[in-house]
């Protein structure tokens, strides 16, 4: 029997923050008891000053396996997730080959289960090979357990094709998650279009590249009734569109990334491709709109868009470097520092809402009898930013002073990370 007792924590349960300081007793992977001054079972961990809540769930992770294992693989990505407080990640389908058929989704899920450090939930492509030309094997993907569909990295540009995907997926209550960037407006775009891009002579990605896609998609959501999720919202105008869509009653959710909450386009001034991602870093007013969107529930989720790239791929000038930054390890610190949510709201955007979007019944929930997927987060602790657990180090947070430390991650009752020291995988590497 494995037992563990977390003591003296601010506990965020299914109905919000419990009064006073409480203990959580975990027995055989299940939350056995929550209450004050409980009898210790197994090791006792003093969590004074920390919050204990459901483990974080990332609905936007690039694990790069299969096909680009020099950047990351399911094991190293799972380790980075555990270090960052995550107990589940949704793997993006822009692998090589792209996850556009059932067996490919099962491969990802099986590798995740072998590693056994977090739930690895495959997402599936909307179009075959992410080519935007014909539908992916949506039935097969559904049968393999996929509920979230996206061509992430590209928008589905053809509105007719997207409409058919929406109709097809609405029938089975799937989620269409869109990377909203209009390829024409963003053509050649390397960064946010504005003062800095003008000064640097780089082609810009105007806010409208994102907003026109969302506006178009929302009218198709109105037509088809599908569940629709806006990935990595980056502009204030997009937040307005989503607010209005929710007020209208459309089944819409949205995510913001840590980097869009933390950095603005002035970070690009030094032309270091560590700050290169799509959508690009925007302006302070956009950051404030995203933060406010999270506070008011217009934006439901903080999702990392963890996008590892090897050093040698970023050892180039800006335009020759790939888009993307890692994010799993310090996302919670960013939320803690810049969004300013109370513990209940903090776990909503990092755990509960993403678990609901991904349809994960044993994630995003902390109550007696629930699966022990938990995180111990110290909001006043200093985050360790001296190195990465991920295989890739394209992180803009390295070396920053950050407040908010993941003390412990518990996945199905097992401690998978303690102060960034990550447990061994459960199964042998496949």
């Amino acid at each position: 029997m494995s037992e563990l007792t977390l003591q003296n924590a601010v506990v965020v349960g299914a109905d919000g923050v419990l009064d006073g300081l409480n203990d959580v007793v975990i027995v055989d992977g299940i939350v056995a008891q929550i209450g004050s001054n409980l009898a210790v079972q197994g090791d006792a961990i003093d969590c004074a000053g920390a919050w204990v809540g459901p483990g974080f769930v990332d609905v936007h992770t690039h694990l790069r396996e299969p096909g680009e294992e020099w950047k990351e693989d399911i094991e190293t990505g799972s380790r980075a997730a555990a270090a960052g407080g995550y107990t589940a990640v949704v793997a993006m389908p822009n692998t090589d080959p792209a996850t556009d058929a059932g067996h490919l989704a099962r491969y990802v899920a099986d590798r995740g289960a072998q590693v056994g450090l977090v739930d690895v939930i495959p997402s599936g492509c909307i179009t075959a090979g992410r080519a935007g030309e014909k539908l992916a094997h949506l039935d097969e993907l559904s049968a393999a357990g996929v509920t979230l569909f996206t061509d992430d990295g590209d928008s589905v540009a053809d509105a007719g094709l997207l409409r058919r995907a929406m109709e097809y997926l609405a029938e089975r209550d799937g989620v269409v998650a869109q990377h909203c960037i209009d390829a024409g407006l963003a053509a050649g775009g390397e960064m946010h279009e504005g003062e800095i891009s003008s000064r640097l002579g780089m082609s810009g990605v105007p806010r409208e590249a994102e907003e026109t896609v969302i506006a178009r998609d929302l009218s198709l959501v109105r037509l088809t009734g599908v569940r629709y999720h806006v990935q990595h919202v980056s502009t204030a105008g997009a937040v307005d569109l989503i607010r209005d869509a929710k007020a209208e009653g459309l089944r819409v959710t949205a995510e913001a990334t840590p980097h869009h909450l933390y950095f603005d386009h002035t970070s690009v001034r030094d032309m270091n491709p560590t700050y290169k991602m799509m959508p690009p870093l925007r302006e302070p007013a956009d950051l404030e709109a995203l933060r406010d969107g999270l506070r008011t529930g217009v934006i439901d989720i903080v999702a990392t868009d963890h996008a590892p790239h090897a050093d040698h791929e970023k050892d180039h000038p800006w335009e020759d470097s790939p888009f993307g930054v890692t994010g799993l390890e310090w996302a919670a610190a960013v939320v803690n520092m810049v969004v300013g949510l109370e513990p209940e709201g903090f776990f909503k955007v990092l755990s509960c809402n993403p678990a609901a979007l991904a349809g994960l019944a044993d994630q995003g929930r902390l109550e007696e009898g629930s699966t022990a997927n938990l995180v111990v987060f110290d909001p006043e602790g200093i985050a360790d930013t001296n190195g990465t657990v991920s295989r890739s180090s394209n992180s803009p947070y390295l070396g920053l002073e950050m407040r908010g430390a993941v003390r412990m991650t518990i996945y199905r009752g097992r401690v998978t990370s303690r102060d960034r020291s990550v447990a061994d995988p459960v199964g042998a590497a496949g």
Partner: protein
Amino acid sequence: MKHLLTMEGVDRATLDSLLDDADEFYEVMHRPIPKVPALRGKTVATMFFEPSTRTKLSFERAAKALSADTLSFSPGTSSLKKGESLKDTVLTVKAMGADLMVVRHKSTGAAWRVAEWADLPVVNGGDGAHQHPTQALLDALTLRQHFGSLDGLRIAIVGDIRHSRVARSDVWAFTTLGAEVTLVAPPTLLPPDLSGWPVTASTDFDDVLTEVDAVYVLRVQAERGGASVFPSVAEYRQRFGMTDARFARLKPDTIVMHPGPMIRGIEIDGGVADDPRCKVLEQVTNGVAVRMAVLFQLLGGSRDE
């Protein structure tokens, strides 16, 4: 000065010092033996990751006139095509014994990255549409030679400002040296946000034409017409070309400049290009002189002969 990467933020004293040295080297270039031993034993690597003829030739001419050796790199013969990172390429050339690198690259900030990796003096020979500082210096030298000073000069820069590293460099050099700059272009070829630029902007060339002391004509990349940045090359010429008719309306002492290569019949008519008030060849000569000054200052050359 450790590197020469940009014209933005470079102060007047630094510009004056480089232009003063360039004047001296201009005189050297016109001696019977146009060569000094100032950089003997030094090696200048010209690393042109983007095709370029004149800038590369100009830097190599400048290095040789200072008695430096040159190492020449061009992408057609490089490992970049095999997927080598820029960092590895740079460290490889450094390991061969370069003392200074001149970097030309289609991507923004390339010279900054090279400076970070190589720990050598670096001259930006043009990065993307961002900066081309030695072009601005040679342009400033040309204006200074002709007018004596840039103070109070009115200069129009006409053409594809949005994609021009020449414009982005000239704007700072010219205004720091006291000139007033007006950018003239169709709206699609102006940068989307000019906040903080010490310039005025206009889409009406004819309105600006008669007011200025110098017209700086930028090359039109004809393929931009295909990308629908302007409707056609003919319409561009009609509104923004330095035509013979517009040339006739300039003040009699106004000069015309161009960074080359000129596309006659599009942005500049042949009659203008061949007029003595078009200073293109002076610019080319001055390019060698200012590059000598830059190499000399960055490599700490000695004036003793």
